[in-house]
């Protein structure tokens, strides 16, 4: 039971701290762009809704879209009746909680995977695992499925989620083969594994983005850069914390 407990302690500590770092970065990086994109998303929706006059409806009411957009919005879960955090402190607080939960989740994966290799022995070793995490969970999925700002419609959500998870798994397996196997055949398989999701291709969006290109591109860059710093922090923190729990 000790091993499990030590992994969870290490992962929780590193995950919470990295989640705080991520939240701070997002306030300057992605959050202003999300707000900007939502304004455009909303005015697009309102323009589409003009003949119906849904002015009385909630700000996220997507019922008032054109038929085409309505279909795309079916998967969009900002239903006017559903609870959502109020703008300001409440919205920030939930984002903070979600970041910390995600941070601990990713941290559990990183620390558990590194335990298979005997455990992290230093912050530097942790940093390398963090870089691998960045490649697996941020970079690889973003290559074919760029992070979407609000207003950027994607393909069916489930398809994108399956592709995202499959890409992360294939990339992780590929990196592990490269790092831990010396056989040339394993390296070949690794390259194929990492390239395969992109050869297969991500699910294609039904329509071009409804927000300006600059904003869309800026958001992709912001997500990848904040993701990079998050993973670097997470890995280094996990590597720094782990030896303090002694032999796991």
């Amino acid at each position, binding site marked *: *039971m*000790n*091993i*499990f407990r030590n*992994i*969870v302690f290490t*992962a929780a500590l590193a995950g919470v701290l990295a989640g705080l770092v*991520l939240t701070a970065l*997002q306030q300057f*990086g*992605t959050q202003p762009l*999300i707000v900007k994109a939502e304004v455009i998303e909303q005015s697009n929706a309102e323009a589409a809704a003009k003949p119906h006059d849904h002015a009385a409806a909630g700000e996220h009411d997507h019922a008032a879209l054109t038929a085409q957009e309505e279909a795309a919005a079916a*998967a*969009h*879960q*900002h*239903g006017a009746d*559903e*609870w*959502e*955090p109020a703008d300001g402190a409440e*919205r920030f607080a*939930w*984002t903070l909680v*979600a*970041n910390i*939960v*995600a941070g*601990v*989740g*990713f*941290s*559990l*994966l990183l*620390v*558990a*995977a590194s*335990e*298979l290799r*005997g*455990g992290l022995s230093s912050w530097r070793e942790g940093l390398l695992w963090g870089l691998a995490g960045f490649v697996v969970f*941020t970079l690889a*999925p*973003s290559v074919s*499925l760029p*992070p*979407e*700002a*609000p207003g950027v419609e994607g393909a069916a*959500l489930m398809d*994108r*989620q399956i592709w*995202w998870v499959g890409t992360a798994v294939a990339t992780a397996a590929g990196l592990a083969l490269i790092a*831990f196997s010396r056989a040339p055949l394993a390296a070949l398989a690794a390259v194929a594994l990492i390239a395969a999701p992109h050869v297969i291709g991500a699910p294609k969006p039904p329509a071009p983005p409804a927000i300006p290109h600059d904003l869309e591109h800026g958001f992709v860059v*912001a*997500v*990848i850069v904040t*993701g990079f710093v998050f993973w670097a922090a997470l890995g280094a923190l996990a590597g720094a914390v782990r030896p303090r729990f002694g*032999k*796991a």
Partner: protein
Amino acid sequence: MSNVTANSSSAADLAPARLAPILSAFLLGVVVIAGAGFASVPALHNAAHDQRHSIGFPCH
């Protein structure tokens, strides 16, 4: 017992007694991420909305 609690410095020492808790912790991580990034329960989605966009999870 001695062969099971072998030194943890090498991957070659992976005994079932070590593997089980590691895999459990890994699965716990998978469940946590599924909740934060993938569950489509509306309240959960709305609470985690900005985080999902900002991490690059596929989101609505």
